[in-house]
């Protein structure tokens, strides 16, 4: 890419132009992050009157703590489940809509709607649908002999939050997959059909490989979404329960910090999350640099 080199008459102007961005970054990103880092090294007494420097003790405690390790594995299950479910359904919808000609834009518009719904509302919506006393799904499940109760079954609760979180993300994934599918030249599909590939085979040998850049991008975005943007959904449906079964890392940061008021531990957890985000972002940038791998 050709970049245009600008020259400024004085030293003041370029700094002044950069300043707003730098100030915003400093106040809203660097400062809180620094605070979290600093806090993660302190321990407050029960009354919040005094803080003592404890070094990496908060981190060491976390990894000795069974509930934190449990939260880690819950997060992995939740993130993998949400990502797989939302991406699979989105890809299915996108390939179906891509075949349509006249009704395509109508379907696209309708399928994007869930994305406009606030996460908390999405959570409540699914909480109603799956409500053990008044929900429609438990009622139907009971007819086939399954007693749905996410209030005391950990796996039911996990399924519920995965459904709610995945449902909200389908729209986003759908749009990207549809765009990806539409950028595949029709003649490639036609050539493959002349080459004797069945629709299923065409999908797996031509379409899916050509969607790789989109798929990888969405994979990272979805994992990040499931890990960090699902607080409201968890809060509105299960609040981390029952028995920590849906207590994902982000929710635990909140629960330990603002409910349990263990600020040091909460800060240490934030720092760990920060490290995870940085790692995911780096993976994504690495890949984007050479995303055109065919």
């Amino acid at each position, binding site marked *: 890419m050709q970049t245009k080199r600008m020259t400024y008459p004085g030293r003041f102007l370029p700094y002044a132009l950069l300043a707003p961005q730098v100030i915003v970054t400093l106040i809203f990103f660097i400062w809180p992050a620094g605070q979290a880092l600093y806090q993660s090294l302190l321990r407050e007494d029960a009354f919040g009157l005094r803080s003592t420097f404890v070094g990496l003790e908060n981190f060491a405690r976390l990894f000795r703590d069974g509930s934190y390790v449990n939260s880690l594995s819950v997060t992995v299950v939740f993130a993998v489940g949400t990502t797989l479910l939302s991406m699979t359904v989105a890809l299915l919808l996108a390939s179906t809509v891509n075949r349509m000609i006249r009704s395509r834009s109508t379907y696209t518009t309708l399928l994007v709607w869930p994305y406009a719904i606030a996460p908390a509302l999405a959570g409540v919506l699914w909480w109603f649908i799956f409500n053990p006393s008044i929900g429609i799904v438990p009622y139907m499940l009971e007819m086939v002999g399954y007693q749905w109760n996410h209030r005391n079954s950990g796996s039911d609760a996990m399924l519920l939050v995965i459904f709610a979180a995945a449902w909200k993300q389908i729209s986003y994934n759908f749009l990207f997959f549809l765009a990806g599918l539409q950028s595949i030249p029709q003649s490639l599909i036609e050539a493959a*059909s002349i080459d004797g590939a069945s629709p299923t085979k065409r999908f797996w040998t031509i379409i899916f490989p050509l969607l790789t850049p989109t798929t990888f991008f969405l994979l990272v975005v979805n994992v990040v979404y499931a890990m960090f943007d699902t607080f409201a959904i968890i809060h509105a449906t299960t609040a981390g329960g029952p028995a920590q079964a849906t207590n994902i890392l982000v929710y635990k940061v909140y629960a330990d910090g603002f409910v349990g008021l263990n600020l040091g531990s909460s800060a240490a957890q934030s720092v760990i999350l920060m490290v995870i985000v940085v790692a995911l972002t780096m993976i994504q940038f690495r890949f984007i640099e050479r995303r055109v791998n065919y």
Partner: protein
Amino acid sequence: MASITLEGLKKTYSGDVHAVKGIDLQIEDGEFVVLVGPSGCGKSTLLRMVAGLETITEGTLKIGDRVVNKLEPAERDIAMVFQNYALYPHMTVYNNLAYGLKNRGFNKEDIEKRVRIAAKMLEIEEFLERKPRKLSGGQRQRVAMGRALVREPAAFLFDEPLSNLDAKLRVQMRVEIKQLQRRLKTTSLYVTHDQLEAMTLGDRLVVLNAGQIEQVGTPMEIYARPASMFVAGFIGSPAMNMLPVDYLNEQGANGLLDNLPDGTDVVGIRPDDMHLAPPTAPHLIVDSTLALFEAAGAESHLYVTLADSDQPTVIRVSGQPPVAEGETLRFFVTRDALHPFNSATGKRTGD
């Protein structure tokens, strides 16, 4: 190897858009037939119907003795070369060639053998392990051809395969396609809008206009005796000049136009049949003013304005005659160079 038979083939979109309006055509085994026409004439649609990429609204399509109207593209035993080559970008050239064979359950040795033979024939052996994006336009074109011929299909279908190449490469690939088809003797149906490509490649041409066949014949038949004013204007470059008979009579035809077939009101004259020196045979004489002189090396095109007329007319002469723009030119046309047409029907009137 097979013949292709089209009987009353029609394509109608959304009820009332008639893209192809009933085509009857017999393509013999081993023949190279070119569908030529302006854009939007239905030639690509027709080819795609033969390939099975478009459904057939009405009519019968046979490849060999089989009626293939309802068969999937893969079951029709045809191969197609696309305008944009349609190479699979994520596969190596080898896998591009092998893909169709793999799908048809060939074993590894057979695939290897066939790919090697095709690659050798097309001189792409050294690129077999490369991805298509590392190839130049001409090389991609060869790979696309290779993918068609490894399967040894009953027929090749070409959809404007040369239109993405630069002029020099286009001529070279044109020659190669012709030679390859001569060698393999595979029935071929080739679509182009380029009349020169059509003339040079085809054993027979099918000139299409607005979803209908205007004329079928060998390139020289069509050039020598265009069946309609459309064909006359489309085949040959620069295009044939059309002069009203009345106008020529006014200019003094010496009775030369008296025995034209009934209904003739326009005559077509090829730009190279308009001579600047009087021929020995009886001839028409027309005066004109040279509006633009276009030198093209071995030949020159003279754009003239006829006396007492605003009819644009082109004359082609070899070399570079000593004429200047604005000069008055007198040119001569013999009787046998006239193509008689009726302007109302657009058809040729006997002769």
